């Protein structure tokens, strides 16, 4: 050993001589020192910072605020009564106070588009809320308890997933044709829509359950139930929120589809789907009557899908394409 050491000392190869960097070039820092200047960041504040800088979020956010405003205060945008229809005005073109003209029944298209917002939005929002609640509950229970509970709930999820939501909705809604409430359509959507959220919630809970901080918490004296609510669920929320935001748009479309098919909302309720359905027969002669409610629907759906994408990027940076 010492021999080799000495030969090395005398005969270092060219370019491999002993080198020590001057200290001023590489000042030593204290081991593992902390940067106290940076602002604190939780997952939510990080997500918010990402969102704020995303143009997609800003555009969709403004649109959604506008849509919510219209839904809450339709009277601000139009003084017309959407249910006041005069056959005299049937298919009249746009005029002062009636920018979109009149439909076959002589109703003001602009007023109907404005008032239809509330229906579409409330169906979308409430259906999503119900779906997320139901799905998270079932998925979390399945993922957390595992074993036979998981087996039963997962098969149940599979069964519901196998039922086409449109077909199921048509069948169920036919039975309640007489009811006027928009709640029947929301409940039907929740009944057939919880499966995707349940699957994601189950996966997220399973993943969060096996993270070490749960074991750590248990060893600190925490109970399983406390772990579920304090640690596992908060850590599983992100993917659920992402699915929720994106699926909101789907439910708005579904409501329009069902109303179009005539099994959705009663004709007395102003809705975009119903109006699109009625405009269908005069599409060739008066396409604009169909265009306005369709455009409103498309913009709303687009806004929520864009919002979903932005939220997804913020909460799950891994899914972002570089």
């Amino acid at each position: 050993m010492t021999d080799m050491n000495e030969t090395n000392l005398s005969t270092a190869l060219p370019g491999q001589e002993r080198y020590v960097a001057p200290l001023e070039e590489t000042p030593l820092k204290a081991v593992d020192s902390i940067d106290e200047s940076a602002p604190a960041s939780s997952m939510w504040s990080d997500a918010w910072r990402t969102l704020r800088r995303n143009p997609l979020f800003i555009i969709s956010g403004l649109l959604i605020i506008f849509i919510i405003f219209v839904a809450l205060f339709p009277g601000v945008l139009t003084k017309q009564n959407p249910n006041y229809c005069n056959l005299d005005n049937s298919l009249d073109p746009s005029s002062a106070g009636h920018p979109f003209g009149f439909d076959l029944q002589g109703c003001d298209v602009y007023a109907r588009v404005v008032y239809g917002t509330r229906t579409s939005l409330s169906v979308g929002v409430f259906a999503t809320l119900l779906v997320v609640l139901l799905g998270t509950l079932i998925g979390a229970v399945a993922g957390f308890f595992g074993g036979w509970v998981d087996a039963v709930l997962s098969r149940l999820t599979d069964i519901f997933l196998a039922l086409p939501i449109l077909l199921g909705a048509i069948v169920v809604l036919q039975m309640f044709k007489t009811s006027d409430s928009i709640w029947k359509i929301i409940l039907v959507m929740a009944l057939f829509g919880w499966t995707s959220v349940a699957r994601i919630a189950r996966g997220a809970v399973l993943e969060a359950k096996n993270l070490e901080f749960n074991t750590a918490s248990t060893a600190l004296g925490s109970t399983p139930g406390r772990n579920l609510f304090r640690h596992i669920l908060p850590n599983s929320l992100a993917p659920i929120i992402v699915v929720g935001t994106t699926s909101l748009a789907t439910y708005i479309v579904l409501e329009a589809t069902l109303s179009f098919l005539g099994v959705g909302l009663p004709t007395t309720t102003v809705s975009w789907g119903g109006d699109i359905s009625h405009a269908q027969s005069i599409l060739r002669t008066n396409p604009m009557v169909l265009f306005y409610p369709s455009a409103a629907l498309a913009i709303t759906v687009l806004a929520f899908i864009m919002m979903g994408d932005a939220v997804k990027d913020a909460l799950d940076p891994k899914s972002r394409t570089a």
Partner: protein
Amino acid sequence: MTDVNTENKLEAMQRANGPLLEVKDLQVDFTTDEGHAVHAVRNSSFSVYPGQWVAIVGESGSGKSTSAMAVLGLLPGTGHVVGGSIKLDGQEISGLKQKDYDKLRGSKMGLVPQDPMSNLNPVWRIGSQVKEALVANNMDIDHEKRSEFAKALAGEGMELKGDDDETFLGSKELPELLATARQALVNIGKTGEDLDKTMAYFTEEWVPGSETRWRVADDLIKAGVADDDAWYLAKKYVIGSTMDDRIAGLLSEAGLPDAATRARQFPHEFSGGMRQRALIAIGLACRPELLIADEPTSALDVTVQKKILDHLHMLTDSLGTAVLFITHDLGLAAERAQHIVVMYKGQVVESGPSLEVLQHPQHPYTKRLVAAAPSLASQRIISVKEHGGDAKAVMEHTVNESSLENGEAIITVDHLTREFKLPRRKEMFKAVDDVSFSIKKGTTLAIVGESGSGKSTVANMVLKLLEPTSGTVTYAGKDISAFKGKELLDFRRHVQPVFQNPYGSLDPMYSIYRSIEEPLRIHGIGDKNSRTARVRELLDMVELPESVMSRYPNELSGGQRQRIAIARAMALDPDVIVCDEAVSALDVLVQDQVLRLLNDLQAEKGLSYLFITHDLAVVRQIADEVVVMQHGKLVEHATTDEVFDHPQMQYTRDLLDAIPGGKLQLGLD
């Protein structure tokens, strides 16, 4: 060491040829999302000569892997070389297009990547993945391709008559070759045991797809066969190999037993060590002149690491391959490489012949690194506080000696067994098999073992996170299996864990304040104000500033998180802390810091530790008693000094031998 002649010849050739790889003032930048440039590597220079092992040592984030990837032209994402030069064989390669790089990679430069688990494609057979390397580089599978350098070294004393002498043996001709070789041996008068021994040697050495014609001839001549006859046989029967032979040959060179069968298996059928051997075979398949090994064994157990590196050393020596060895382990680097390059924060701070750097470190960072390296440390950390600031005066850790003998046991583990059911198997798997030991108050007992030895299972049973199949754990004289409700809560209060993964054991949604406060809240201790005061006190105890209270785990480094985890464990004033690989994921300097913290806390509060680790070197720094486990069984149990100075079992001795750099003599000044 190889004999002096070869050594001198090697050096003369290295001097004559000049460096194989020469990196000068290399600068690598990464662009962040916001468009800032982060200087990952700055002004770094190093060189590798043919046939030489050079090690780059540094902590995570020091730029060591980035430098290696820059050489390979494989910088990830937004990284790019912005300055300096990289010369391979005198030719500048830093500005090459990817297409030109493709020609260099594989045939001139090979890579053995870090993680054997993720670097093999799980849907391809091992053999196909070796084949891919051969086919992509258009390799001649009939002939060995070796550098002039290697030929000159290895062919010493043999006259090579031409390229055909480097033809591989094929599996088809092997039986006949062996039969005629036996006949030839009989003809020259070999019989009985002598004959059998020589034939056994031939059978072992003559691997199809790896053994060349001149080696066969050489073996025959050395066994006593006349030159002409030997060459006649070699020329007649060694006439080239098939692709399958070559693949098996490469795998067997990398030290994989039964390579022909193994080549048809999938990665999941391989252990970590076997996968790493397959990756070595792939890296060397096209006989590169430079092999870049990026932490090739950091995911493996120490005994496996030693075997693999020993083999790789032998292989690269015989092929004349130069190796650029990236590692975080100073001891390992010094043991394996002739030349060491120490990197810190993207810069080379010191480089030179390995022993010299290690024995006389000059840069303060290197000094710090050498002082902290557990594999080089030779005694237990002595708490400075314990000895009134004069640690050097007390050479022996005497305080705990007496408590080890007469002390009262706080945790006793008695004939502990835990079985698990394996999927698709009838018999139960015994993860822990009849283990007994006890921890005396105020001392540290370490359980050492390789992965799968059952050491963590024991820890989980001591923490009552897992119920034993049989046997008991007693805490302060009471059997913990009976604990329920209030008693269990009380037990949890006194026995606290610190887990391995500093990234996983803190809830990412909780601020540091909430994380440390959680145990106080669970146990209903104090009101809001007193809890805040306690959290402050705890942070101070682990030497972190108060300002971290409002931060989240993702903002802290691994070592800082581990200190938070320790603060959380200390919140309830426990008697026992179970550290399950608590420092394994940390860089040496940080590891050293955390170990010292644990030690100070022990001295101050009279804590008892159960310390689970795979790293015997760490044990020496922290433990008073050691339990060695293998395959779920307790192999050896003694005081730390006993185990290190007089290991009783072969397994313990193997573990001690495998500590990298353990035998290096250090004259620290």
